[in-house]
């Protein structure tokens, strides 16, 4: 038991809070919004060791397993706020610091974390402030006494602040030059290594290596003794290599259609996998490029807010339009405050009233923001094997009158009247 506890404390992301629950718990509710599939009426969720063991309608529960039964309640995955500065200083710099992380600033036990957790937010993505390439964001649980307890993933996504101007485009070009420079360095080192290993007659894999512009990692596998170790990248270049190799997500902040056009222009022939952060303004003109964004299936992080056709009072539902064009929508609170985190579901509900599809809205507060943090395999929906981050409500999530009844984080109730 002690060993288990130690392991769990070392790797808090995979398990319980301070002490593992140790046992099974069966949750019976009126309805479960699974997000990944259809809603389940009379749902039973079996939770074990902080994870969802099983979920289904009217599942039989073996005798002896404690049952938490609330037939009037609705359960959904805990909300994910993937783009926030909650609990940390808002000051921004202008340095080029892609290697920076916001975690050193985090103050565990900050009151904001407790409040948003009680409002149903079980995962947050803290981003680094600043323009250009200010650093990468980290995924945290808004709960825990130490940073280690809070941390889910140190490297969630690289933040890029891009606006249509010469300086921003130059910065992108500089980064590309740096990456090319590094590639050149790796190539040279590889050639040198090949030459050296060729000089030794014992090596059988000469042939293969000659035609090998393949990744050095592959060689490492068959040839452990004399594996090629690529030269270490500069810390300021490494994040971009990680993005290129799909190890790190990228979130590009834009505010208008022109920013998109220039971003595409600056990165056109690169096969980049990125999400967009769209800063919603009253008269945002991003609808001009919604088809382009949709065609690429980009995930868009945006506020649940109605905008206007520029120069008029005509309303537009940009989220619904983007979604209809093929983009994925991840909502962030209107303002980065505790109150707007708490009002998140209500605000998204307003978007549904203005034409947004309900499924898109549900995903937009759970699975999609989880995907921005590259955590979509671990949380964001009610599925077997996923972390038991649950939000209990007394009605439909998007009804204004609905209230949060309880919140479960990694299989533990962290708020609500849940005593039997």
């Amino acid at each position, binding site marked *: 038991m002690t060993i288990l506890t130690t392991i769990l404390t070392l790797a808090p992301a995979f398990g319980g809070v301070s002490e593992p629950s140790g046992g099974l718990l069966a949750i019976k509710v009126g309805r479960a919004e699974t997000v990944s599939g259809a809603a389940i009426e009379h749902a039973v969720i079996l939770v074990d060791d902080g994870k969802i063991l099983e979920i289904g309608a009217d599942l039989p529960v073996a005798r002896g397993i404690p049952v938490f039964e609330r037939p009037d309640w609705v359960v959904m995955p805990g909300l994910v706020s993937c783009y926030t500065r909650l609990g940390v200083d808002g000051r921004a710099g202008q340095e080029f610091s892609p290697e920076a992380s916001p975690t050193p600033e985090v103050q565990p036990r900050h009151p904001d974390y407790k409040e948003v957790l009680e409002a149903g937010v079980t995962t947050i993505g803290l981003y680094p402030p600043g323009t250009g390439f200010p650093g990468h964001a980290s995924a945290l649980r808004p709960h825990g006494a130490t940073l280690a307890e809070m941390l889910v993933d140190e490297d969630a996504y690289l933040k890029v602040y891009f606006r*249509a*101007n*010469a300086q921003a*485009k*130059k910065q992108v070009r500089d980064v590309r030059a740096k990456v090319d420079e590094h590639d050149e360095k790796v190539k040279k080192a590889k050639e040198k290594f090949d030459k050296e290993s060729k000089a030794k007659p014992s090596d059988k894999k000469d042939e293969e290596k000659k035609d090998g512009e393949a990744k050095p990692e592959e060689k490492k596998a068959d040839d452990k003794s004399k594996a090629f170790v690529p030269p270490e990248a500069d810390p300021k270049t490494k994040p971009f290599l990680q993005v290129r190799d799909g190890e790190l997500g990228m979130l590009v902040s834009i505010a*208008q*259609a*022109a920013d998109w*056009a*220039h971003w595409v*222009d600056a990165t056109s022939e690169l096969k980049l996998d990125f999400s967009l952060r769209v800063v919603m303004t009253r008269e945002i*003109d991003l*609808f*001009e*490029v919604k*088809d382009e964004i*949709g*065609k690429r299936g980009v995930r868009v992080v945006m506020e649940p807010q109605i905008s206007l*056709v*520029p*120069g*008029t*009072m*005509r*309303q*537009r*539902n940009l989220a*619904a*339009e983007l979604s*209809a*064009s*093929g983009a994925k929508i991840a909502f962030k609170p209107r303002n980065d405050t505790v109150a707007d985190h708490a009002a998140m579901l209500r605000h998204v509900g307003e978007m549904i*009233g*203005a*034409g947004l599809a309900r499924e898109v809205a549900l995903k937009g507060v759970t699975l999609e923001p989880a995907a921005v943090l590259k955590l979509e395999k671990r949380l964001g929906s009610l599925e077997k094997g996923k972390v038991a981050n649950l939000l209990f409500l007394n009605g439909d999530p998007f009804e204004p009158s609905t209230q949060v009844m309880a919140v479960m984080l990694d299989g533990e109730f962290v708020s609500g009247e849940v005593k039997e």
Partner: protein
Amino acid sequence: MKLAHRFRALGALALAALSFLAPPAFAQDGEKKEGDKKDEASKDKKDEKKDEWFAVTGGDVYTGTGAVLRGATVLSKNGVIEAVGHDVEVPADAKTLDATGQRVYPGLVAINSNGLFGMTAGDFADSVDPYNQRMLLALASGITTAGQSNTALKLKRRDIKNVVLRERFLATLSFTNSNPSGKREWIEKFDRAARFLREYRDWEEKKREQKDLKEPSSSGVDSTAKAILEGRVMARFNASNREDLLEIARLAQRFGFRPVIDGCVEGWTVADELGRAGAYAVVTPRDRRDKEEQLVRDGGSSIENAAILHHSGVQVCVIPSTTGVDLGGIAGRDILHLPIEAGFAVRGGLSDQAALESITIVPARLLGVSHKVGSLEKGKDCDLIVLDGDVMHYQSLVQYTVVEGKIAYDKSAELFYAHIRPRPSDQLAPEARQDKGESDEKPAEGAGETPGDKPEESPKPEDKPEDKPKDG
């Protein structure tokens, strides 16, 4: 429910607006049409680039070179004019725009502008905002090329490629009696540059015999002055005083270049001298300036300024007093009223043709892009406007603006002027018609929004002149 309906209407609107430039991702009128389009697009990709043909047919074509071709065709191939005339064969796959009963002019050129390319000061290639409303409004006024920071730029909607036509063909010089030392400096610079060029030509001549002759040193030669004297750059002055204008004329004649003079308010008093110096004048016909009463000589502004300058051989370019889009203050004096401003030059005696040139080919020359824009001629960019009347008439509205063979503005598809003298429904683009069908009896898009916008059944413009400002 009402809200939802509104959104649907908006979606359709956006479709109508986009449909000219790109096939919409989701067509509302059935899969078939969309499928066809897609097939075409993929075919295009396969056999490399297929030529894009575009033709404006049946309009009275004012080429800008002096000719008027009634009921003629302008044919464009890949954005460049292929033919202008009466017996032009239009390829079967060409997109066509019927301009019967309308007038076709070259796209207007504004020598100065502000904000049309977004809130940017320079580095246009890296910062142009091709979606901003000011660009759209300028296109709605007929402007297809504009200068900003002495750079010639094309108004390309939703496109950031090849926006910059030419950079810094104009160099602004401070040469005025109120800054004598600056004046002296420029004279010295021109002197030195002229001397260098003479020495250089001499050296080039002598080099044929004496191969090892040393090249004359260019140290201390001002590069701007040298470029002006070589004709690579045009010197631009800002002067309105008679004395300043005379000094500029003398300077230009002494060193042999053609000056561009902004303002030129008192130009009419020294028009002969300016004409002899081969000057270009950038004038605002509605500029008002009092005469200095203590002087006996002529002075002050005159509505005849442009006409007198033109008669003396000065090439006249017209620009409104505000070069940005300005919807405040006195209406009708901003960049959106470029042709109206030229109309005031006509009021002062300038010919229609010279007035048209003052907002097309002359500014194109000053920006160094007259080989590409400024008139409708074979080989030039297909930038043109289709109007329901004379371009300089206060009542005329631009119906279509075409930039490089593509419709960049359609009056009936945009919010600004669609409700003013709306086009009969059979002349609307199919997308716009469809829109209309959806919102039932509403004539133009969303006309129900503002009660004052109800169009008359048969507008009688002669009874009811448009007294509202155009941008109102």
